[in-house]
């Protein structure tokens, strides 16, 4: 479960103060499917980064599965990020030098899992995401949809409780976008909390809970 209380995130642009998040209170239960929508600069990406522990709020507290994660050290936060959170980005963020299989393997290496177990888990994941025949291709040799599938496989190989997607279909055409959404929703059905940040009304509408943001505040929260 994710519980944010009075979260504030302030950026300084020159001598101007921008309140990207302005006293956010939010609770997301485990297994929910949530979309966060709003115009550019409304703070939705910042909210996702705070939930994903990539960004530290200036004030407020964040409780993840009963632990106050705002108080954790950088190394401990990295571990929480690794084990409980999966990120899916609009631009995939695959490492160009590594093959699809090696990209998927990265979280297992960071976790310190041995090579034999890594191999079997990567194989299983490649099968589950229908990437077996692309395993030894580099990202530049993959289509957009395949790249996003690799990215999602990487994000979920350590079985995180929450999957955070920032415009996951933003760089894809309609048909591959739909495939990626179906994949994400299948993961949601398997029990993962799914939070999607998007401009796309159609994609946003598919979620079971819709949060709207404007100027760093939540202005709508419907189920």
């Amino acid at each position, binding site marked *: 479960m994710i519980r944010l209380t009075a979260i504030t995130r302030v950026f300084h642009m020159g001598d101007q103060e921008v309140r990207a998040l302005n006293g956010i209170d939010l609770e997301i239960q485990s297994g929910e499917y949530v979309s966060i929508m709003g115009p550019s600069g409304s703070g939705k990406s910042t909210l996702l*980064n705070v939930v*994903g522990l*990539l*960004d530290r709020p200036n004030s407020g507290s964040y409780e993840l599965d009963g632990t106050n994660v705002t108080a954790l050290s*950088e*190394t401990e936060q*990295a*571990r*929480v*990020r*690794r*084990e409980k*959170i999966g*990120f899916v*980005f609009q631009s995939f*963020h695959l*490492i160009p*030098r*590594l093959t699809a299989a090696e990209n998927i393997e*990265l*979280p297992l*290496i*960071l*976790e*310190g899992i041995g090579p034999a177990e890594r191999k079997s888990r990567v194989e299983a994941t490649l099968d589950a995401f229908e990437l077996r025949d692309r395993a030894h291709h580099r990202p530049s040799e993959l289509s957009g949809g395949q790249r996003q599938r690799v990215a999602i496989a*990487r*994000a979920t190989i*350590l079985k995180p409780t929450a999957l955070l997607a920032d415009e996951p279909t933003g760089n894809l055409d309609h048909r591959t976008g739909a495939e990626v959404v179906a994949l994400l929703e299948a993961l949601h059905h398997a029990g993962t909390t799914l939070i999607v940040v998007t401009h796309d009304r159609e994609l946003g509408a598919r979620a079971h809970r819709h949060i709207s943001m404007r100027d760093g505040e939540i202005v709508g929260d419907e189920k």
Partner: protein
Amino acid sequence: MNLRDTLSLSFMTVVSYRTRSLLIVLAMALGVAAVVVLTALGDGARNYVVGQFSSLGTNLIIVLPGRSETSGGFVSAALGQTPRDLTLEDARIVGQLPQVRRLAPLNVGVAELTSGGKLREVTVLGSTAELLPIRNMKLSKGSFLAHGAERSAQIVLGSVLAQEFFPDGNAIGQRIRLGDSRFMVSGVIEQQGEAMGFNTDELAIIPVEYAQELFNTSTLFRILVEARSRNAIEPAKSAIQHTLKLRHDGEDDVTVITQDAILATFDRILRALTLGVAGIAAISLAVAGILVMNVMLVAVAQRTSEIGLLKAIGAPSADIRRLFFAEALWLSLAGGAIGFALGHLGALLIRLAYPQLPAWPPVWASVAGVATALITGILASLLPAARAAKLDPVNALSGK
């Protein structure tokens, strides 16, 4: 992330940026190779000089007429004033000192050697039988100016002279004319080549009394003295000085130099020279270190979004720092290893090109070269690695 994965992941990175890695490894390797080759040259020169000296004989003390305070012995002494000459009687007295194992008086001159219609100007040494062991010379044939036969007209020829005058190889017992006197060839010196300016292959050696007669002189050019042991060199030197001062009416008019002192000086100079060139070569290693730093800083800038991604999938800052650190380590390790190999190859080529120069790289230089490469590489990676680890993941992911 464990150590093995860190090393293998960074190794893959090094390999995938092939051109960049090759160039930086080359820079590193040249630095290390320069250290190895230049110290091999310096040390080779030192060993060469030491070898030349020891081929002159061990525990050698040289007595020359005239007082010259300056070191550098041979030349300045040859030009020095001679208030009182050294004589054969001086040599005899010195030979009675307990610290002296043996000695050989020495006269040098040039005379015409003729036999069977052949004629040649040769450098003639006048000496005694003791010259052979003192100067580490060996005979290939016959006998040296044998004891008790000092007053007979014997001559010992260098190998080249023997070959030129008696091509059929049986020089021993043959008659040969030197100046106006007739000599009998008693021995031939084994081929030895040049040592400290004396080419024994083209020398003729006759008994010292005959040489004095030939050159119409009663003085000696040098007395070569061999001390009983290394420890006896200094006592022998002062005893010789004392004895000759008494004989020369209290005049301190001879110079006594020891080979050890000359050798030590050369050794010091060439050691300093070796260190100097090693230092200069080490500068190129420092430059290579700066190159590594620059390359790693560029790598951090290039891979900003990758670093952000690693953080997003849960890499702690420490892991990121270690990855960049390991990458620099691989580069300098490869540079060090290749430089080591290149340097030794270079030294080998020098030895092949100049066989008389023992251009072996000293162990300390190889170790120091490689170690300096590693240390500069590691130092140079500290700043870039820290910078990578400090990157804010949100900004890094968006490429800012």
